[in-house]
Every structure is written in C-alpha cells, then in structure tokens.
C-alpha cells in the first residue's frame, strides 16, 4: 500500500468513528459532542454561516448529513441508514436502541448482527459520502481559475444567482489576470537585472511592472467595492490583496501612493497613458523613481531623472 492510500484510509476510518458517535448521540448534532474531523470537513465549513463558530458548523454538519442521507449511494441500506440516524419521522428523537431496532427491521437483519456488522458499514458509507461532498466543496473554493478548452460557448441560465456568480468570477478573473501580468513583468525585470542588461532596458521593464502593479491595485479596489475585504467562498479569510501579492515581491508603497496608482490603473488605460498621467500627478515622478530603484537595485539613470524632472 502506498503511503497516500494509507493516509486516506486512516482519515476515512477516523471519520467513520466520528460518524458512529453521531449515531450514538442522535440528532440534533450538538457542538460539544461531535468530532473535530466532521466539523472541519470542507462541505461543512463551506455551508456554515460562520465557519469560525463551532455551533454554526454543527448546524451545517447536520444539514450536510441530512442531505447526504437523502441521497445515499447504497440503495439497499439507504432507508435503514435514515432510520438509524433518526432523520425520518419514524425514529426522529428516538433513543439509539429504538433507532437501531427500526433500522435492523427495515434492512431485514437481526438486531445484534445489524449492530456488529451492518451499522459500521453504514457509518463507513456515510463517512465516504461526506468526504466526497467535502471534495466537491473544496473544488468550489476560489483559486486561480483552471481553464479548459470548451467545445461550445458558455450559456448562463437566466437566473440572478447565475448573473451574480458570473460577475464574481469576472472580478476574480480580472484580479488574477492582473496579478499574472504583473508576475510576468516582475520576472522580466529580474531576468534583465541578472543579465546586467542596459539600464534603459531595465528601467523600462520596471516602469511596465509599475503599470501592471497599478492594474492589480485597481482590480483589487474594484473587488473590494463589490464584495468587501474578504474573498468570497475562500477556505480562510483570504483577502483580494493576497491575490495581488502572490504575483511576487514589490516595493513598499504608502497608502497614498497605492491610492494614486489604483486610480491610474484602469483596465482600459494603456501604458503610455498611465505613464503620462503618473508623471503629471503630484509625487508621481518620485514614486516611479523610487519604484525603479527598489525593484532593480539600481539608481535611475540621470537622463531618466532629468526626463522625469
């Protein structure tokens, strides 16, 4: 057995153990009586109104559990599983012995055999289904979008949720797109510095990087205005600024400088327009000179400073 298979099996076993505990305690799921793995499942975190609150996650777990029991893959044991967990009226609120008896009868087993052999199987099935639901939820978390070739155009349904989801994806894509363009220029600057390229070429690349950085700041500000300071649907409290930061190291800027750049980084403004508007704004030339110096490790060429000044 390869190590990853062993780890995955062990995780499923642990989860099945925690599912057995839920069976024993019955529903509703109580925050103080539920295992940590169940509460940290991606499907649970994704559904919890407040992922940092144990009570909220316990409520989300119960909903996920009910939904997965409603669509349990194993048709033969599905009815027994619902009786065992008490999610159907017949056993809702009943003690474990009564739930188990009803489940054993429904599945056609003697109750002791059911407890020893079938019940663990049901818990394993439910645990597996919860894990798969978790994987689906993980896939729903935003990351740099992975693109695929498509054989037909994307047609969204006429639905407000779809429109909003598309708007959000659009904002996220704009942000990642700006970050990747900045990344390309930062790498370009590093290469030119490493090659000891002529100063004019290095400074020119640094200026393009500054323009791309301004576009990142503009896309970040646009995201914040529409969705707030935290990326929607991220596993943790990931901020839109962190997407921009993932492009690579950039020189520190003051909040005023960031505001200035963000205002000049509109997606429709070209490099020449950006450079001209930056030079015309108060502090713009100094900002550009300091950026070049910090990014390239060189002082700006005298002719460039003269040109700027």
């Amino acid at each position, binding site marked *: 057995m390869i190590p990853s298979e062993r780890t995955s099996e062990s995780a499923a076993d642990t989860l099945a153990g925690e599912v057995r505990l839920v069976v024993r305690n019955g529903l509703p799921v109580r925050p103080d009586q539920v295992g940590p793995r169940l509460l940290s499942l991606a499907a649970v975190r994704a559904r919890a109104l407040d992922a940092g609150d144990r009570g909220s996650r316990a409520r989300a777990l*119960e909903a996920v559990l009910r939904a997965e029991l409603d669509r349990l893959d194993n048709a033969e044991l599905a009815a027994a599983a619902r009786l065992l967990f008490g999610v159907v009226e017949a056993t809702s609120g009943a003690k474990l012995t009564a739930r188990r008896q009803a489940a054993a009868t429904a599945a056609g087993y003697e109750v002791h055999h059911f407890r020893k052999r079938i019940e663990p199987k049901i818990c394993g099935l439910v645990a597996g289904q919860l894990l798969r639901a978790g994987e689906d939820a993980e896939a*729903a978390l935003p990351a740099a979008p992975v693109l695929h070739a498509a054989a037909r155009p994307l047609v*969204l349904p006429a639905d407000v*949720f779809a429109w909003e*989801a598309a708007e*959000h*994806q659009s904002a996220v894509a704009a942000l990642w797109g700006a970050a990747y363009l900045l990344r390309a220029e930062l790498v370009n600057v590093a290469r030119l510095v490493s090659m000891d390229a002529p100063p004019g070429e290095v400074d020119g690349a640094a200026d393009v990087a500054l323009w791309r950085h301004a576009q990142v700041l503009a896309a970040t500000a646009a995201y914040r*205005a529409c969705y707030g300071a935290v990326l*929607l649907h991220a596993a943790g409290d990931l901020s839109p600024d962190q997407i921009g930061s993932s492009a690579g190291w950039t020189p520190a800027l003051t909040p005023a400088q960031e505001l200035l750049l963000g205002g000049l980084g509109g997606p429709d403004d070209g490099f020449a327009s950006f450079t001209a508007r930056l030079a015309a704004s108060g502090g713009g030339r100094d900002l550009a000179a300091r950026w070049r110096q910090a990014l390239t490790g060189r002082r700006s060429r005298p002719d460039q400073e003269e040109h700027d000044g």
Partner: protein
Amino acid sequence: MTLQQLLNPTTPPRRYVITGGPSAGKDAVFTELQEMGVPATVGEPAREIYRAHRDRLGRHLQVGDRQAYSRDVLAAFVREFCDHTAGLHFYNRGIPDGYGWDAFFGLRPYPELEEATRIYRYDAVFILDALDDFDSEDDLVWAKEREIRRVHELIIQGYYDAGYKPIFVPADDAARRISFILAQLPVPAV
C-alpha cells in the same frame, strides 16, 4: 389521486416551493407546469428586481446595495405568498432563498428575513438536483463548475436553516420531475 383532485381550487391554500441553483432546470419545470395548467409563478420576480437595481445604479451591485436588493426581493416573495389564498400553487423560489443569497455574499441574515421565514411557511420545498450537464466536459468553465455549485449548496443550507426538510428531485426531464413532485403531494383536504 388525479391531477384534477390536486388542482381543486376550493381547498385552503397549499404552497410549494421549487428551487435549486442555476442550471438545475427550474425554468423547464415551470414552463411544463404552466403548459399543464398547474398554478405556478410566471417568470422569476427576482430577475426583474435585479435588472431594475442595476439600471438605477448604472453599475454592478456593490456591498452596500445588496441588502436593499435582498429586501426588495423579500417583499416580492411575501406579496406572492399572501396573494395566494386558495388551492395549490408552485413558487419559483421562496423566502428562504434569501438565506442562500446572503450567505453567497458573506452577509448575515437580517431580521426581516428571519421574521418572514417564521411567519410565511410553505407546505413543502422541492430542490431540483443539478442536471447531468452541470458537470459535463464542455461546461468546465469556472463560472459553472465552482460558483454555481456553491450557490446550489447555499440554497439547500438556507432551507435547512429555515427549518424545512427539502425533498430532492433527481435530475431528469421536466415532465418526469413534475410527476415525481406531484407524487409527493398529499391529498388536499377540502
């Protein structure tokens, strides 16, 4: 039980929600219901309210705009609920869809939504499972594979949070889904 018995307009009001994420096939189900003469929501009021908000703002909704939109949609849902006074009616989304909307944007449910959820109760909630083509290879475009799946899950969670036990309607053609839904309905008390 025949369709005519189900449709008996002289019974007390019976209100059923049909909901689900985008791409769940809701439009096809409602079109089919209307062709069968089953009373059901025409169109989706939330769409027109959304368009009106965008037109008024002249831009995409921002953080501060969303709860105003949500409140307008809630008012429309409540009106639609109260307007129905006898017989059966299927609603294209229901009041607790607001929980899914708020959760999608990381907003907490607001008091009016919670109060409306408590006061205006539907008799049953049907959630359309995502259609098979939801995951088809051609649809591996992120707007569908990530966000819309998440919306679907949040809508389901909203109904659980509101105290409903939704009935999941398997992916199928619209006519079969309606047969499935109608088979779950109790004989109306006259």
